C-alpha cells in the first residue's frame, strides 16, 4: 500500500515561498516547479571537517563522498515524494541530516558526533513487540509492522525457546515422571526455561549441561560450563555478552531469541574469530550516551542504509547487513572438544571440529561471488516500500522520521525462508531426484541420483544431525517386491532394535507386522563429500571416509510373537546386522510427510547424506557438544550429485518403483528418546 502511494502520489515541491504574497510574473504565471537543486554539504565530525562521509539524498540513493575539506556536492531530486533532506553517514557516527525546506538555501552544514564505542552492560535490549500490537514506540512492531510480523514466525525468534534446543542443552526429555523413569531417566527439580522457576523435569540422555559439567541427571542450577550455546541461541541476554548460560535467558531473552535489537546492535563482524556468535564473530555495541524524551540511552542501531537519520533509530550504516558475514556469525562454527578430558585430534582437525559450515560452503561455492545469503533467505518483500510501514500513523509523509519510500525489493523479508518455512518450498526446490532401472540376471537394478540443484551451500547444511535420504520401494504386479541388494540406509535412520549377529529370532520389542531388515557390511563406502571427505580437497583428503557400505540382503515380516521368539513370513538371510522396524510409510506428498511421524528406515534400500559427528565413546550422530570427531561427511556440494544402486528381486515385467527424498531435522533415536515429535519433509519424489 505504501508503495502505491509512492507511485501514485508524486508530490512536487513548490519553490515559491508563498503564492499569495509572491508578485505575479507575467512571463510565468504558472507555478514554478523546481525539479532539482544543486547543494553543497559541509560535514564535520566532532567539530572537524571529515573526509569520506557519505552524503546522500534521503530516499534517493547515489551517494557522494566528502573531500578532505569535508565538503561534497549533491544534486537533489526535488520531485521526490516526501521530505527532501540531505542525509550524511559516517561509520563512526550516527547518521545526521539537514532538511531542505526551499530552493534558496544551497549550502548546508551537517555536524556529526562520534558515538561512544564503549559497550554498555547496563543497556537492556529493546522489545521487538508482537504483530498487530503497537502500544508504544519502544516496541519495534510499532513502526516496523511487516518486518515484525515476518520475524515473529521465524526460526530466529525461536532460537532460545525451541524445545529441541532446550532439551539438548539441559539433557531433558519431554516425558512425564513414570515414562521418564521407565526409560531410565531421572525426575528431578530443575529450571523451567525462560523463567528460572524451579520445576520437576525429566533428565534423560545426552545434554550439554550434564555432559560438560559431569553431573548425573540435571544440573540446571549447578553447572558452570555452558558450551557457548547462548552466544547464538540467546544473544539477547542482557549484561555481559557471551559465555552465558542458556537457562539465564528469561522473559524476552528467552521468548524472542535472535531479536531485532540484538541483530541490529552488531557493530562489526570478525570472520577470523574462532568464537561463535556474540562471543567473537559478532561484535555488539550497546549505546551509553544519555538519551532524551524518556529514553534512558540515546538510540544506536546498525543497519544497511546510509539514509536513516531518524533520531528514534540512531542509525549507523554497515555493509554486513547486506552480505554473508553477519550470517556467518552463527552459521559458521568450529569448536574444540567440549566434554572434560576429551580432545580433538589436532592433526586431523587443526582448526577444531567443523560444526556449522554453511557460511564457508556458500563462500567457497559457485554462488559465493554472485549472491548473498540474503538473496535467497531474505528475499525482497515486494509489498513493503518502507521498512517502517507505519500502518498506524499512515498520514505521516515519508521523510526523516518515518523513513522514505524505497524501490520495491530493497526491503527484505525477515522470515528467513528455508527448511523451516515449508510454504517457501525451499526444500522442494533444493534437490533433484532421478531414477534409472535396468534388468539384471537376478532382478531389477535401480539407480537413484540425488542432486544439489538449488542452494549455494551443501545439502543438508546447518545443524549436523540433519539428514537427507532417499528411500526406495518396489512392487511387482501390485505386490511388494523386496530389495535383495544394493545400498541400505544406516542405523540412525531409525529402528526399534538392532542386533549385530545371532539367529535374529529374539526381538523383545517385536509386534506382529513389524519388519526385520538384514544388511551386510561390504567395506568402506566410497564417496566425495565435504572438505577432507571430498575426493580432491585442497587441504588433503582423508583416506578413511568413515561411512560403511552396508548392503541390503533381505527382510521379513513378523507374523507371530511369543516368549520363545518371533516367527517370520520368510527365512532371514545371513548378514552383519538386523534392524527391527515398524510402520514406515513412504509419504507421497509434502503435506503427508509433514503430518506423519518420521519413519524407521534403517536397513531399507536407500542412501543418506549427512555430517557424522562422533562422541568420545565412539557413538555416531551425536549432538555437537558431545563430539570429538567428524568421522564422515557425504553431504552434497552445490551443483553436485550422488548416486546409489538398489537391487530388487525378479519380476516378469518392469516393477513399479517409488522413491522419496526426505529431510530429517535430527536423528530418529534422539527424537525417540526425548519424546519429540519428528516429521520428515518430502523434498522430491520420483517413480518408474
Amino acid at each position: 500500500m505504501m508503495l502505491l502511494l509512492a507511485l501514485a502520489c508524486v508530490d512536487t515541491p513548490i519553490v515559491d515561498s508563498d503564492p499569495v504574497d509572491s508578485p505575479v510574473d507575467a512571463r510565468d504565471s504558472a507555478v514554478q516547479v523546481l525539479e532539482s537543486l544543486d547543494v553543497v554539504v559541509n560535514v564535520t565530525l566532532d567539530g572537524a571537517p571529515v573526509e569520506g562521509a557519505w552524503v546522500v539524498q534521503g530516499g534517493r540513493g547515489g551517494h557522494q563522498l566528502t573531500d578532505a575539506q569535508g565538503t561534497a556536492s549533491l544534486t537533489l531530486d526535488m520531485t521526490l515524494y516526501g521530505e527532501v533532506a540531505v542525509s550524511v553517514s559516517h561509520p563512526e557516527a550516527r547518521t545526521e541530516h539537514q532538511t531542505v525546506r526551499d530552493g534558496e538555501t544551497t549550502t548546508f552544514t551537517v555536524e556529526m558526533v562520534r558515538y561512544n564505542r564503549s559497550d554498555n552492560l547496563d543497556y537492556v535490549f529493546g522489545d521487538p513487540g508482537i504483530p498487530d500490537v503497537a502500544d508504544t514506540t519502544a516496541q519495534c512492531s510499532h513502526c516496523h509492522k511487516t518486518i515484525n510480523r515476518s520475524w515473529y514466525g521465524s526460526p530466529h525468534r525461536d532460537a532460545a525457546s525451541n524445545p529441541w534446543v532446550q532439551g539438548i542443552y539441559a539433557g531433558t526429555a519431554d516425558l512425564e515422571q513414570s515414562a521418564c523413569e521407565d526409560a531410565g531417566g531421572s525426575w528431578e527439580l530443575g529450571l523451567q526455561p525462560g523463567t528460572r522457576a524451579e520445576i520437576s523435569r525429566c533428565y534423560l540422555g545426552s545434554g550439554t549441561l550434564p555432559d560438560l559439567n559431569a553431573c548425573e541427571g540435571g544440573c540446571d542450577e549447578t553447572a558452570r560450563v555452558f558450551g557457548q550455546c547462548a552466544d547464538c541461541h540467546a544473544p539477547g541476554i542482557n549484561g555481559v555478552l557471551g559465555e552465558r548460560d542458556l537457562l539465564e535467558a528469561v522473559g524476552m531473552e528467552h521468548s524472542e531469541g535472535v531479536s531485532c535489537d540484538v541483530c541490529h546492535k552488531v557493530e562489526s563482524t570478525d570472520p577470523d574469530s574462532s568464537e561463535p556468535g556474540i562471543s567473537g564473530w559478532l561484535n555488539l555495541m550497546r549505546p551509553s550516551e544519555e538519551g532524551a524524551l524518556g529514553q534512558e540511552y540515546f538510540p544506536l542501531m546498525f543497519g544497511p542504509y546510509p539514509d536513516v537519520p531518524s533520531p528514534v533509530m540512531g542509525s549507523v550504516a554497515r555493509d554486513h547487513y547486506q552480505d554473508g558475514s553477519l550470517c556467518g556469525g552463527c552459521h559458521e562454527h568450529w569448536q574444540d572438544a567440549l566434554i572434560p578430558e576429551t580432545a580433538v585430534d589436532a592433526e586431523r582437525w587443526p582448526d577444531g571440529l567443523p560444526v556449522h559450515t554453511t557460511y564457508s560452503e556458500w563462500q567457497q561455492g559457485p554462488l559465493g561471488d554472485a549472491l548473498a545469503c540474503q538473496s535467497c533467505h531474505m528475499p525482497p518483500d515486494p509489498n513493503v516500500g518502507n521498512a517502517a510501514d507505519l500502518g498506524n500513523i499512515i498520514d505521516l509523509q515519508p521523510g526523516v522520521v518515518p523513513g522514505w519510500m524505497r524501490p520495491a525489493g530493497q526491503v527484505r523479508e525477515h522470515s528467513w525462508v528455508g527448511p523451516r518455512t515449508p510454504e517457501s518450498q525451499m526444500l522442494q526446490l533444493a534437490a533433484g531426484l532421478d531414477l534409472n532401472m535396468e534388468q539384471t540376471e537376478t532382478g531389477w537394478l535401480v539407480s537413484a541420483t540425488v542432486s544439489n540443484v538449488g542452494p549455494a551451500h551443501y545439502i543438508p547444511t546447518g545443524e549436523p544431525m540433519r539428514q537427507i535420504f532417499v528411500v526406495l520401494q518396489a512392487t511387482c504386479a501390485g505386490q511388494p517386491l523386496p530389495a535383495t541388494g544394493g545400498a541400505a540406509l544406516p542405523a540412525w535412520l531409525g529402528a526399534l532394535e538392532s542386533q549385530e549377529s545371532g539367529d535374529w529370532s529374539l526381538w523383545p520389542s517385536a509386534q506382529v507386522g513389524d519388519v526385520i531388515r538384514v544388511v551386510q557390511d561390504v567395506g568402506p563406502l566410497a564417496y566425495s563429500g565435504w572438505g577432507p571427505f571430498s575426493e580432491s580437497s585442497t587441504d588433503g583428503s582423508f583416506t578413511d571416509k568413515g561411512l560403511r557400505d552396508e548392503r541390503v540382503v533381505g527382510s521379513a515380516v513378523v507374523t507371530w510373537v511369543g516368549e520363545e521368539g518371533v516367527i517370520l513370513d520368510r527365512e532371514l538371510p545371513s548378514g552383519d546386522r538386523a534392524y527391527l522396524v515398524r510402520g514406515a510409510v513412504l509419504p507421497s506428498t509434502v503435506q503427508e510427510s509433514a503430518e506423519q511421524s518420521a519413519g524407521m528406515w534403517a536397513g531399507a534400500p536407500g542412501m543418506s547424506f549427512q555430517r557424522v559427528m562422533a562422541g568420545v565413546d565412539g557413538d555416531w550422530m551425536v549432538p555437537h557438544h558431545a563430539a570429538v570427531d567428524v568421522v564422515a561427511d557425504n553431504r552434497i556440494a552445490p551443483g553436485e550429485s550422488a548416486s546409489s544402486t538398489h537391487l530388487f528381486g525378479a519380476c516378469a515385467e518392469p516393477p513399479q518403483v517409488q522413491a522419496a527424498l526426505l529431510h530429517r531435522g535430527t536423528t530418529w533415536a534422539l527424537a525417540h528418546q526425548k519424546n519429540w515429535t519428528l516429521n520428515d519433509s518430502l523434498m522430491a519424489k520420483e517413480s518408474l
Partner: protein
Amino acid sequence: MIWLLLACTHSGDGVDSVGTEETAADTEETAVDTAPPGRPAFANPALAEDQNPEPGVFELTLSAAPHDFQVAGQQVSGYAYNGQNPGPLIQVEAGDILTATLQNGLENGSTIHWHGASVPWEMDGVPWMIGPVQAGESKTYTFQLSEPITGWYHPHFDTERQVDLGLYGVLLVKDPAWPVADHELVLVADTWGEAPEEGHHSGFVFQENTWTINGLESPVLKVEAGQSVVAHVLNVSNMGYLSLSAEGMRVVGGEQGLLPAPTTPERLLLGPGDRAIVEFSPGTQEIELLTHPYSVAGASELGDPVSILGIHPSTSGAANAGLDWPFESAAPTPDPGKTAVRYVFQGDEQTGQWRINGEAFPDVTIETLPEGVPAVIEVRNLSATEHPFHLHGMSFEVLSVDGVPPDQRTIQDTVNIGIRQTLRILVPADNVGDWMAHCHILPHAEGGMMTVLRVE
C-alpha cells in the same frame, strides 16, 4: 543512457505518422481514421515489401541503423530497421521461405534472432558459435517457416541495449486456413519512460511507465459494431509485463499458432518476449484493452490499469459471435517423468547477478539432448522475481507448473515462471544445434541468466 529526448510534443492531434507509410494487405489498419481527442489513431506497423516475386519465398533487406522517430508523441533517437519502429512487419504463410539480409549500419555488431521460429542453428542470430555481423557488414538469413507463429525479430548481440533502442519487428507466419477478420491488428507493446541512467526503459516491479502500441500511446481503432477484430499482441519490452484484460476478449492463439481451444482468462499475462492472438467482438460499447499493474516480485496488484488500445465502434449494433477458427482440441501430454535437464534460476536484483545452475553465460555447462528423443526439461526458479524462460530453436509443450498440468495442450517458446515455481516442459529435440535458453528479461540475460542446450 539510451533515449535522447529531442523534443516533447504530445500527439494531441491524434494522428501519428510512424510506420504508416505503407499499407498492409491483410493487416490493413492505418492511421487514417479519426480518434478521440488526445488519443492517436491506431496503425499497424508498415508491412515489409517482398523483394522476390517467386511464390512461397519472401525476401527483404533489413537495414539496422540509428534513427530518430516518435514514441508516444516524443521525438527520440534510437535504432530502427529500415527507418521504422517497429521494424517492417514480415507476414508470410506457413511453409514459405524467408530470406532476410541484415545490413548493419550501426556503430557496432548486431544479429537478427527470429524469436519463436524453429530455424537452423546457423540462422538463429546468436553469436555463440558464429560471431555478430560487424558494423558495415551484411549477413543473409534464409530458412523455411513451417509452422504458424506470432513471432518477432530482434538482435541477439548487445541485445539489451539494441532492443531497448527500438530494434525489433514482427514476423507473422499465418495459416491460410485461419478466418479473415474485419480488422487484423499487430500490437507491438513496449514501455518507455525509465530514468535514462537506469539503463533500460521499462518498469520492473510496477508498470509505472508508459506503454505504447506501435509507438503510440493508447491508440484507438475505429470499427463498426458487429465487426471482427483479431490482434497479435507482442510484448517486446526489455522488462515490462503486460497483464491484459478487456471486455469480451477471447484468446485464440499463443506464440505458436492457435490454441487447442479458446480461453477467456481474467488476465492475459505476457512477459517480455511473450505473444498471443486475441479476438474482440465489438458491439455498441467501446472496448478498452487494459494492462494492469503487475509485480514480478509477487507484490499485490496495486494501482489502476491503463488502456493500451481502444476499440471504439462508430455504429450501434450487436457483436458478432466470434470467428470460426479451426481449433483442434488437445489434452496435455502426460509427463513422462524422467527429467533430462534441470535448469535452476538464481539471482538477486540487489546484487544484479543472475545465474542458471550457478553459472553465468558464457561460462556455462552445455547440456546435451540426443536428436529426435523428446526430453523433459525442468526449470526451477529460486530467485525472488519471475522470469520469462525462452528456448531457441524449438517450441516446447508445458507439462506442468508446480506439478499441475495446464488445462489444454500448451505449445510455447517463451513461458513465464513464477517465484519458487517449478516448470516442466517437453522439448522435441528435433532441431540439431546449440540453442540459447534464457530469461527474456534482457538485463537478466545480460547479467548471466542464459545457457546453452545442445541437440545432437
